[in-house]
């Protein structure tokens, strides 16, 4: 499903974020990307939906070489990859419901089916009762759950999250991880970057450890 082969990433300033990474994530797998701040976790995750392109090596997602993907094809790749960020990236000028509807606006779904999907996604993350609220009225954990609902509403095959629990208390963090685990149980491939070793310890999953851009044992 996701395959990195000798992937390196060097930013224009010369900073080498990733050095010859090679690994694979199978379909339906749940894996953590662990490592300290600056280890290269975010860069690794950004390569999957082509937010960044590798300087060298090959990133394959569902058999597609992401590095060689045309710019016009990138949106279609991203529709199959749900993204959750530490800062949620929500729109605060619209309701919880409208935030979840955003990815459905450019889908092929009709209005009624889109609304049903959006409500189902909110139901799964426990925010069905808050659909009319503004995201600013939600707690940090609720905002992160809203971001997850938006990420999964298009039913992506892959869900990637970059430090989704960094700003959350332990209970909220565990609740967010439980949601990821639930999606993984229905076949979604989940990749979570975190520096929270305690959280990783609570979930017996595969862990890829990064240090200075390389995978370490």
């Amino acid at each position, binding site marked *: 499903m996701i395959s990195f082969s000798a992937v390196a990433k060097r930013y224009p300033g010369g900073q080498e974020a990733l050095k010859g990474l090679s690994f694979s994530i199978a379909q339906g797998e749940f894996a953590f990307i662990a490592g300290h701040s600056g280890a290269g976790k975010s860069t690794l995750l950004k390569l999957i*939906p082509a937010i960044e392109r590798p300087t060298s090596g090959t990133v394959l997602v569902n058999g597609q070489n992401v590095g060689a993907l045309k710019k*016009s094809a990138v*949106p279609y*790749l991203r529709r199959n990859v749900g993204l959750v960020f530490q800062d949620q*990236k929500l*729109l605060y000028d619209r309701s919880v419901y409208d935030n979840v509807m955003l990815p459905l*606006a*450019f889908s092929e779904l009709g*209005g009624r089916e889109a609304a049903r999907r959006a409500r189902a996604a909110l139901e799964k993350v426990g925010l069905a009762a808050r659909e009319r609220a503004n995201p600013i009225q939600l707690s940090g954990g609720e905002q992160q759950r809203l971001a997850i609902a938006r*990420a999964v509403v298009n039913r992506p095959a892959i869900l990637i999250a970059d430090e989704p629990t960094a700003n959350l208390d332990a209970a909220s963090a565990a609740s967010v991880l439980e949601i990821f685990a639930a999606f993984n149980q229905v076949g979604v491939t989940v990749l979570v970057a975190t520096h929270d070793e305690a959280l990783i310890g609570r979930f017996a999953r595969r862990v890829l450890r990064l240090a200075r851009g390389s995978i370490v044992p």
Partner: protein
Amino acid sequence: MRAWLRQHRQALAAAFGKIGAQKAAAALNALVIGIALSLPAGGYALLGGLRAATAGAALEPQLSLFLRADATRADAEALGARLKGEARLRGLRFVPREQALKELQSSEGLAEVVAALGRNPLPDAFVLHPASSDPATIEALAAELRALPGVAHVQADSAWARRLRAIAGTARLAIALLAALLAFGLVAITFNTIRLQILTQRAEIEISKLIGATDAFIRRPFYYLGALQGLAGGLVALAILWSSIAALNIGVAELAASYGSDFRLNFLAPGDSLAVLLFSVGLGWLGAYLSVSKYLLEIEPR
């Protein structure tokens, strides 16, 4: 197809939403565009009025051929037959002396003068339309016609017609230049409005790109916004033009009445009005296209 139409409907609704959210700014933009567009549109309407006012006079070069006063109708018919065979003429009209007198009598202030004459002093005449508009050719033709038997006088009316045509041509060119200049202004206004909108919506655009929106999907509401802004400006321009012509016609009616005419300035024909609207919509869209092409490229999720 249905999804595509739905997306267009959503984009149009989003554009209306943006206008609704910034009513004052949108109204001001429409007013600026409307004033800018009303200038060339008004010039065009006035030129149309000038054309209507001079419709009775030929704008094309023509020759007036007057027969001698003692020429009989048979002489006139013989001359007419000869002129019809002249290849350098593309048309002619015979004006009998009775008709000429009638036309003179109908002229404002001349009826009493003509009545005082007691007899018809006017000769039979031909109005000739040369095939060529070249002044030298027309003058040469006039010289030849003067030499024909029974001809008293040939007057080449090309000089004033040329002047009038040159004035009308210059006015048309000036209007076209003004329209082109103001079109740049309109594009610049829309360009800037859309630029500000893009900057305001930077976060939304970035997020939309992250979750799989295509460039076309992101661009669409801005195109509609530019086109709607142009349309609003076009409507304002037509409203300004209509009001101005209505106001001018009060004075024009009075002036025309003093010449015994019922001449009025006309509002643009429906086709011309539609052209103004399409022009303004097109320029609005162009401004949006240029702005979106420049600034959307700069927004990439990081």
